[in-house]
């Protein structure tokens, strides 16, 4: 079983590169390099996911082949698509609210990147491990709603406006159950620090015929896991909750008017949010980077877990119909909220009485 590496990645780097002696400047450089590495790993994953994996997965679900022209298994389509998208004309709609319209894609993509700063990804990859890690992740991830509203409002397009309003309504309705279900995990661990949440899941819950089942919170409290997963899918705006985009209703919602680089940013931002959602799920419920094998391959397990979440979103995309906005709000406020509070109270009782 793997325990978390004690030192965050910047400190490791700082030691490795001998930046200790340079004081704050050295810390800054080390942090920058570490952030650069993490950011690029995540962007590379979205780069694979967006133009290639998404198509391949959907193709498997729908009896098709998808990208297979360039490179092995069509992987060469990734750089080709990148060049294509970046080379397109950036069309600015008439009457767009300029600074807001330009900043919105950055906020959507950036907010997700910020979230990865505190995620313990195993193999010693964690940029920072603040005491309020969990609160921080939820806080920065929800900044994305702001970006969507800005994008929708600034586009001067009615479809975009509707999409933006839907995004706000949806995120409000699902953020609360999401956070409250997250808190039920915190009741077990007694800490918001993500590394401690992961560490609390390393003990063996039960041993079945020699196979040790770890005390991942998905096994300890499956009810909370399902609730969290559902709220999380809604939070990242995937089917059946892709209501802010809803191509067949409001075309593409808040991103209708975006093209070229801005579109790429929004698109990347969405995928980053899926992966961040997967990362939070992995940390809270799936034992973080834990898995069979030596501690050093923890990062691989972590990647497997967030890709599993990505696969789930793509599976839903192929199989689940979209809810209507009023049904979504109803499920959020009348169903998920109550259930998450129920879960919180029950967990509190169990933790208080039993543990």
């Amino acid at each position, binding site marked *: 079983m793997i325990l978390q590496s004690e030192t965050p990645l910047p400190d490791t780097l700082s030691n490795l590169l001998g930046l200790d002696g340079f004081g704050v400047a050295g810390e800054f450089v080390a942090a920058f390099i570490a952030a650069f590495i993490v950011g690029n790993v995540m962007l590379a994953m979205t780069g694979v996911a967006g133009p290639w994996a998404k198509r391949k997965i959907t193709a498997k679900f*729908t*009896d098709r082949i998808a990208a297979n022209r360039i490179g092995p298994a069509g992987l060469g389509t990734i750089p080709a698509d990148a060049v294509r998208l970046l080379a397109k004309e950036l069309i600015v709609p008439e009457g767009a609210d300029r600074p807001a319209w330009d900043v919105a894609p950055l906020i959507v993509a950036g907010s997700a990147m910020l979230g990865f700063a505190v995620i313990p990804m195993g193999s010693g990859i964690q940029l920072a491990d603040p005491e309020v890690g969990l609160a921080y992740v939820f806080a920065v991830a929800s900044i994305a709603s702001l970006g969507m509203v800005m994008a929708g409002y600034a586009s001067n397009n*009615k*479809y975009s406006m509707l999409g933006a309003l839907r995004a706000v309504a949806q995120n409000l309705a699902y953020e609360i159950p999401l956070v409250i279900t997250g808190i039920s995990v915190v009741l077990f661990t007694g800490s918001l620090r993500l590394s401690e949440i992961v560490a609390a899941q390393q003990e063996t819950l039960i041993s079945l015929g020699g196979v040790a089942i770890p005390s991942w919170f998905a096994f300890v409290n499956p009810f909370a896991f399902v609730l969290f997963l559902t709220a999380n899918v809604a939070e990242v705006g995937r*089917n059946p909750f892709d209501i802010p985009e809803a191509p*067949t209703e409001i075309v593409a919602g808040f991103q209708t008017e975006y093209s070229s680089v801005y579109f790429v940013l929004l698109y990347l931002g969405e995928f980053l949010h899926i992966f961040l959602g997967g990362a939070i799920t992995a940390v809270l419920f799936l034992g973080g980077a834990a898995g069979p094998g030596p501690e050093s391959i923890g990062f691989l397990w972590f990647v497997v877990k967030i890709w599993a979440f990505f696969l789930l979103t793509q599976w839903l995309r192929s199989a689940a*119909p*979209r809810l*209507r906005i009023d049904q979504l709000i109803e499920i959020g406020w009348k169903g998920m909220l109550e259930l998450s509070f129920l879960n919180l109270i029950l967990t509190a009782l169990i933790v208080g009485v039993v543990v």
Partner: protein
Amino acid sequence: MSSLEEGEQTPEIEAGETELEALLDDLIVDRDDHENAPAFVIRPDTVQETLGRLKEEAGYDHLSLVTAEEYPDRYESIYHLKKFDDPTDEVSIVVPTDAENPVSESAKPVFRTADWHEREAYDLIGIDYDDHPDLRRILLPETWQGHPMGRDYDQNRPQMVPLRDHANPLEDDHRADSDSDTMFVNIGPHHPATHGVLHLKTTLDGEQVVDVEPDIGYLHRNEEQMAQQSTYRYQIMPYPDRWDYISAGLLNEWAYARAAEDLADIEVPEYAQIIRTMGAELCRIAAHMLAVGTFALDIYGDFTAIFMYAIRDREKAQNILEDLTGQRLMFNYFRLGGVVWDLPEPREEFFEKVRTFVDEIPEALEEYHDLITGNEILQMRTVGTGVLPEDVAKNYGATGPVARGSGIDYDIRRDDPYGYYDELDWEVPVEDGCDNFSRLLVRMREVEESAKIIEQCVDLLEDWPEEERNIQANVPRTLRPDDDTEIYRTVEGAKGELGVYIRSDGTEKPGRFKIRSPCFSNLQTLPEMSNGEYIPDMIAALGSLDIVLGEVDR
């Protein structure tokens, strides 16, 4: 077969005719009988009263079609009435109007469906329907000069429309008052869910649809005029394929074939009728597969498994149709008096292919039911949304799966039999939920019934003695039906009652060729279904109507 039945029905109709004459005694000016129905000539200011009496007292509750035409001395509107209970019981009301001042009373207060039909007559012919609340052009742009099917229309005159008269339609965005709570949105003509070039002028109150007005005509080609410029024998047949082009080609061809054959008294050999029946049902399966797939697409929102599954199964039907007709989309397989060629050789292989396809249908549908109708979210989305009550559906002249989803037990194949349908064992699926879900279910059940029909056709064709494989009746090289005979015949197309009205003028080309498009009438019901509902429900309702713009606009 058809002649036999007509023989049986003749006394009945005559008995009915006297009653009708008594009912409309004070209104009838003259008689002008059509091949398919008695026709009464009335004065243009008594349209509402006549139609009202026929609807309320004689039970003619289905205004199937409004045909208009300009003659040298007059304009004429013909209202083709039927009964939903018995579509063979028909009557036509002929309303001649003055050539100088063609004003005729509107039938809209009696039959809601007359709204668009009369707008079309105004647009293309130029008849002015008095007290019609919204008499605007419907197929052509509002700035169009002249009425293209009128006699004095000059086709060579260019349509010079200054920009100021044809302003950007998007400018209308600001039509509402600035302090209004509603928002105007143009959905289409380029929108992922409009299935073609349909433009919905939608007024929204938040997420709710306050009003929606379909704007059609983007695909208008005036197929009627094209048919009028072509000869009966060969030149018209390729056109029907282009009405409902969603692989329903043979069904459309049959609409023309039925009207023209009955007009010219052509008896189609039984063997050809079976081939026609089989081909038509293959087309129906292909069309319904696409309808189910795209409906799911509208609800699901992305390219999903169900869409691809539906397309996969549609592909099998298409392959068989390709073997049969040599074409995948524009079949041009029917000929007046039969079909163009016999089944492909080797026959055993073809039958085997069809049988495999038909046998796989129940299994495929099971998969669909698992994926869509059994899905709880889909049920949440479709049950009780897009409601079209039975009486409203009748008033709008809705037919086909749309009517059958509203509990109207109406299918031309059974109620006014043609082809080989009345010899076969099948059922008409009817659902009385009146909502999107019912329409979906009706289509899926119809696929099953079509499969049954095809199977029986294959059985018959397999055992057909080789020397009696007669695919084509004797038809004169040039058809010249008698002068001034008129006929209106309908068939059950994929989308509903597809009809063709032909008036012959003694030449080898029709004097007037009028198409009754089921989609045209069905699309009219959209505001009824979606006003007050949410945008997604309007999209779902539109998907459940299964319109093809090629047929709406013709």
